[in-house]
């Protein structure tokens, strides 16, 4: 276990009021929200310019974000936490929630990533969705997503974060099911929504626990009260927050929805299910550092979940033939790395965010590249039908290659710096975790090389009536920008800048003690990556790739193709017992509850039917019964009186 900071050293969120350009922070959220309202309410009148309006609001948010960033850099390092009080949201008894924006180094890095990558993806979508009759609606949803995501990261209160959290869930649902005429897309959207609900339950329980324990849900109040709370409370909150993070960030055991979410249009996969929304879980944990630092058990759980997920996703990525699903497995795995760094505490928070940003660049780049390939291949996603595309799609190939080199950690590219740092910190924590992270890096190199080879190298395997062609400029320009960022993202770490920048929020830890010198570790990582690449080249590049997936494969391959039976496990452990319980309850309701009511009614009815028979209509029989009654009463009186 890494030694914890003494309680006093955990940064407390203590923002100052906003002034100057910082007071415009609310516009960051308001602009895309206004765009989304105009596009969704305006209807067909906005069809002609809707896509440009959507792109413009995202870009305007980005420009404003950069301005605020510059303003923030102009302030002293310990005065970079600024809050803007908009209005009081709830005021019930002791419970107060204010609608408050918190602009600090952490949220601002997210703002730049969301609006920057978001604008590029908006631009790309102008081309990608050009022939879709519902393009305007698509941009409305994208803007809604950007607004909700900005709300999530800018909120100064867990309740505000929850608002954005649910907003991105809604946008994700709408966009996964955007092609709702496909049953698979509709089912995937529902699956994502339901699994996210499970996670949201954890988050909402965490917020309720905070309210009960601390009486407040604002970051400032919670971070102040956390040091005085019992460890059991903090551990409970930490684990509940982790459940929320698992749902949103597709971590085991709530990982099942992410692969299916690839049913959405590719820009959605790039923006929401790779670059931004799925990283919200990492944000949540880094933001809640004041809780995790005091709850080592919760931190250990985070590390375990992260290590399992990073290997789980990587293994799935090795067996998928669907290019988007292979990338989705890789997303899972990379978020596992971020979670791992976040779970390692002060030593890792900054690196988690660093990897999150570089991953946002290179994964968005590769997803958009995959979209470009699909565009060229008539929306075929099966890599076994690709092959040799590098000559026909030169721009896509080159930009994709930048993303590829970044994700495997080729020296010099952004992923090299960020992943290297995480593996280093993991080794500093424990050798076992370090080895798992190292193994993950090797597998990453393997499956990404396999994807690269099957798509751009090897023989051409497509049908004769497919004519691959390069995408229009509006799609390739975002690719080029993202490729450049994939290469250059590493500059953030020069001189430890990102660590220093984030220090006021997440604290600072000395460099971890490593079993071997850092340079040797870097060489080992690079060697492991090289082994992964070489293996992929031997197993895929040097051999004929069959057009249909071979069926006589090992158990491991079959398991990986079936997402390591994640769905089967959920089905057995949750869905079927749940369905059985429901059937049991329905049976109990109709059998026992309804049975008692209806049986009682039937009994009374039958008795009435029998009694009715006494009404014969014959006066003489009535007379007889009266007589008998009288005799009985008289006899009874006699008996009583004599006795």
């Amino acid at each position, binding site marked *: 276990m890494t030694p914890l900071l003494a309680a006093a050293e955990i940064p407390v969120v203590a923002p100052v009021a906003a002034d100057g350009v910082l007071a415009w922070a609310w516009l960051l959220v308001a602009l895309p929200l206004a765009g989304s309202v105009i596009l969704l309410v305006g209807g067909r009148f906005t069809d002609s310019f809707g896509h440009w309006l959507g792109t413009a609001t995202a870009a305007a948010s980005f420009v404003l974000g950069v301005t605020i960033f510059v303003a923030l850099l102009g302030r002293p390092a310990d005065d970079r936490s600024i809050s803007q009080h908009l209005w009081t949201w709830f005021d019930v008894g002791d419970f107060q929630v204010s609608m408050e924006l918190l602009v600090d180094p952490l949220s601002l890095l997210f703002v730049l990533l969301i609006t920057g990558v978001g604008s590029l993806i908006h631009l790309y979508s102008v081309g990608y969705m050009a022939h879709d009759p519902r393009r305007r609606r698509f941009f409305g949803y994208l803007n809604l997503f950007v607004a909700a995501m900005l709300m999530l990261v800018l909120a100064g209160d867990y309740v505000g974060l929850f608002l954005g959290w649910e907003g991105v869930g809604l946008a994700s649902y709408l966009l996964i099911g955007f092609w709702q005429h496909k049953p698979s897309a509709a089912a995937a959207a529902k699956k994502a929504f339901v699994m996210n609900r499970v996670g949201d339950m954890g988050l909402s329980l965490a917020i309720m626990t905070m309210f009960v324990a601390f009486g407040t849900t604002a970051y400032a109040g919670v971070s102040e009260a956390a040091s005085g709370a019992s460890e059991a409370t903090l551990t409970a909150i930490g684990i509940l927050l982790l459940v929320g993070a698992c749902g949103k960030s597709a971590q085991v055991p709530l990982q099942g929805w992410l692969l299916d979410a690839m049913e959405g249009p590719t820009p959605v996969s790039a923006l929401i299910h790779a670059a931004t929304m799925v990283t919200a879980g990492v944000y949540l944990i880094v933001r809640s550092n004041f809780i995790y630092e005091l709850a080592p058990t919760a931190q250990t759980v985070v590390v375990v979940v992260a290590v399992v997920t990073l290997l789980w996703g990587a293994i799935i990525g090795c067996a998928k033939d669907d290019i988007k699903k292979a990338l989705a497995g890789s997303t899972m795995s990379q978020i596992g790395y971020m979670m791992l760094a976040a779970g390692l505490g002060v030593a890792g928070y900054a690196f988690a965010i660093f990897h999150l940003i570089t991953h946002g660049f290179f994964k968005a780049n590769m997803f958009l590249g995959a979209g470009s390939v699909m565009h060229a291949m008539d929306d075929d996603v099966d890599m076994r039908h690709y092959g040799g595309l590098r000559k026909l799609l030169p721009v896509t190939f080159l930009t994709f290659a930048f993303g590829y080199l970044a994700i495997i950690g080729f020296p010099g590219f952004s992923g090299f710096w960020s992943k290297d740092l995480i593996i280093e910190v993991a080794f500093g924590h424990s050798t076992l975790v370090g080895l798992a992270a190292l193994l993950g890096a090797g597998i990453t190199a393997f499956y990404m090389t396999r994807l690269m080879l099957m798509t751009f190298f090897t023989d051409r395997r497509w049908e004769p009536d497919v004519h691959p062609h390069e995408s229009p400029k509006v799609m390739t320009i975002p690719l080029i920008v993202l490729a450049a960022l994939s290469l250059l993202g590493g500059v953030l770490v020069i001189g430890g800048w990102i660590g220093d920048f984030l220090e006021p929020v997440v604290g600072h830890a000395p460099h971890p003690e490593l079993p071997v010198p850092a340079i040797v570790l870097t060489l080992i990582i690079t060697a492991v990556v090289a082994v992964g690449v070489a293996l992929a080249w031997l197993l895929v590049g040097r051999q004929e790739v069959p057009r249909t997936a071979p069926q006589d494969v090992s158990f491991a391959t079959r398991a990986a193709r079936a997402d390591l039976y994640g769905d089967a496990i959920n089905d057995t452990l949750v869905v079927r017992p749940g369905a059985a319980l429901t059937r049991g309850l329905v049976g109990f309701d109709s059998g026992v509850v309804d049975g008692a009511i209806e049986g009682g009614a039937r009994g009374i009815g039958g008795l009435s039917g029998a009694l009715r028979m006494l*009404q014969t209509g*014959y*006066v*003489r029989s009535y*007379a007889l019964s009266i007589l008998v009654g009288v005799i009985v009463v008289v006899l009874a009186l006699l008996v009583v009186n004599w006795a």
Partner: protein
Amino acid sequence: MTEYVILSAILFTIGAVGVLVRRNALVVFMCVELMLNACNLAFVAFARQHGNLDGQVAAFFVMVVAAAEVVVGLAIIMTIFRARRSASVDDASLLRY
């Protein structure tokens, strides 16, 4: 004294049996009157035995009620007889389950 009560009991029994076994509404009606009068006899007999007038007053009430009952009852029986050409109480058995 006992003889009056025995006579009253016999008259009441004849009336009750008549109500139960006869079908003709008029006869049934007469039997009802017989039972009422048996009661009256018993009232008067006991009143005399105990030396107070309560029983005799009750007998007058019974007579008044019996007279009123005869008016209503005979009117009903007449109407039924006109409608159905029969005075049998078993024929008028439509009011049943």
